[in-house]
């Protein structure tokens, strides 16, 4: 990653009347990175992307592309092509005409247009459909047409607005591989908006998590997964158990937090160092670090929880439980282990984890 950002959102905000879609934010996007912006619907991720594309005007702040202010540049004068959630292919044009569209709009001559479109048709493996109407293509093929159409001008940046949401699971995974490879080979910047954690975390170099118009956290997928910065992020990722309570002991590298379900030892980490006895604190434990057992285990942190339900997730299953303090808890387990435990809803079971598995959230 270069030190020179390709895109800078400098205190950029967007409001529609009284409604704040995006609070003034600062975000830098580096040249050649795959950046995913993730959040639930209405969090401002699409508005952010549309401001970069020039389809919405920011109400405050400055957007810079390659160092130049682009706030007042209409979308047709920017080279920030977007792949739409609906794909928005032109239904009255053939595949080839769709791909040639932006070249035609930019006044590129017929022969050159043909040549450059040909190259992208080949690259996206849709040459054989070139003269077909786009309405007669499958979902995956249409996806490739949309990509070719946006990339034909060889832009520095490609914006993608939930482009895979309409595909079935199998095709989705295949298109993820296509997108990842494409981005690596081309070396151009991808900004990818999605509500899907698996899409964001499997493809992106960095992930931006947004909520209610604010950026909650920016970081590499592993980093966000291992150390969520806020309770929102921890809950949004969905695989964490969140405990809130009051610090009773803060001795160097380890702290003790008293929660409604008991007192638990947690490593202080970066965020916990400032905590003093009496402070409120929140910590998370990822669901794959949770142990389940019929009897109280020796040492470590443990609590007795009530089984609510089991959820089948492919090779593993997630057991949903309720802690003595009413917390919603979860543990990810293999089917073999669950077969040994023979749990049914209403059963009491001991949940335990090593102190090193806890992660203290900063603030709040």
């Amino acid at each position, binding site marked *: 990653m270069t030190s020179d950002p390709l895109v800078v959102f400098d205190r950029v905000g967007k409001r529609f009347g009284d409604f704040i879609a995006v609070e003034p934010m600062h975000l830098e996007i580096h040249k050649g990175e795959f950046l995913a912006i993730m959040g639930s619907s209405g969090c401002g991720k699409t508005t952010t992307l549309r401001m970069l594309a020039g389809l919405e005007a920011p109400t405050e702040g400055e957007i810079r592309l390659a160092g130049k202010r682009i706030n007042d540049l209409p979308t*047709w004068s920017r080279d920030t092509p977007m792949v739409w959630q609906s794909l928005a292919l032109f239904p009255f044009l053939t595949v080839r005409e769709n791909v040639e*569209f932006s070249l035609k*709009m930019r006044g590129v001559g017929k022969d050159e247009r043909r040549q450059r479109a040909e190259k992208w048709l080949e690259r996206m493996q849709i040459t054989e459909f070139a003269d077909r109407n786009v309405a007669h293509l499958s979902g995956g093929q249409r996806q490739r047409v949309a990509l070719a159409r946006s990339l034909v001008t060889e832009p520095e940046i490609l914006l993608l607005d939930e482009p895979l949401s309409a595909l079935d699971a199998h095709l989705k995974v295949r298109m993820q591989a296509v997108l990842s490879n494409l981005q690596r080979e081309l070396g151009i910047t991808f900004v990818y908006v999605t509500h899907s954690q698996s899409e964001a975390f499997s493809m992106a170099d960095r992930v931006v998590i947004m909520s209610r118009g604010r950026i909650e956290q920016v970081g590499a997928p592993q980093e966000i997964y291992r150390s969520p910065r806020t309770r929102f992020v921890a809950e949004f990722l969905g695989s964490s158990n969140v405990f809130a309570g009051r610090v009773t002991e803060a001795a160097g590298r380890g702290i003790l937090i008293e929660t409604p379900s008991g007192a638990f030892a947690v490593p202080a980490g970066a965020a916990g160092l400032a905590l003093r006895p009496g402070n409120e604190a929140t910590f998370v434990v990822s669901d794959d670090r949770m142990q389940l057992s019929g009897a109280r285990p020796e040492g470590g942190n443990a609590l007795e929880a009530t089984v609510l339900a089991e959820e089948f997730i492919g090779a593993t299953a997630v057991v949903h439980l309720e802690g003595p303090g009413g917390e919603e808890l979860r543990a990810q387990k293999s089917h073999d282990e669950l077969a040994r435990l023979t749990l049914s809803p209403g059963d009491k079971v001991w949940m335990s984890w090593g102190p090193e598995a806890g992660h203290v959230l900063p603030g709040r």
Partner: protein
Amino acid sequence: MSDDINRSAPVEWSLRAYLLLTFAFVFAPIAASFVFSFNVDRFPSLPLGGFSLTWYQQVAADPLVWEGLRNTLVAGITVSVLATALGFGAAYTDFRYNFFGKSLYLALALLPPTIPVVILGLAMLAFLANIGLSGAIHSVIIAHVVMCAPFAMAIIRLRLSQMDPSLEAAAWNLGASQWVAMRHVIIPFCRPAIFAALFITMAVSFDEFAVSWFVSGLNETLPVKVLGFLQGQVSPKINVIGTFVFLTSMTLVILAQILLMKRGTGGKAGQ
């Protein structure tokens, strides 16, 4: 379909008979006019006197008919172009913009066909006479544009409602300015509806009598001429003109229907 347990033969047959009777009721008078236009007798009565093209020859030789036809055609073509252009603009405004008073705007834009034609004709005559535009072919054109534009708008609006709203923004995003996107995306998408609107508005103008009668003055259109003929004498020439007007209007309306029903390249975008 006798093996279909969810259907009953008596019901099917009675529905078919009902449909047939309805069509007979609607088309019998027109068919009669068509048949009598080829009948040699002076008065329409059965049994038929014999096949003849006399009345067609008489119509073709009548300069008044030709003058009426010319007025009708000039008005019809001009009206269809102007009304479709206006209707397109109105429909696009509705598609693209949200503004205060939009429902009022839509109600006003779709109002003219609900006004009784006699009232509309009278109002048009009074208004056009006041500004010195009555009694000429352009009076008919102005009045018919007012009547036809809402039809064009309704047809094109329906088509625009089938368009993926991101299609236009996608064109802008790919380097097309607003006018260019209009030309390369909106108009091609609406093309079938635009042609359908052209045909329908032409048919409406072609058939329209009451308003034309009020405002046309000496430049009578064909339907107005027909009334003139009827007042003088009942001539089988009416049957000939009726057949011609019917066939022309039906052709236009059927063409419009075909355009509107054709999917293929039309279907919804981005599904």
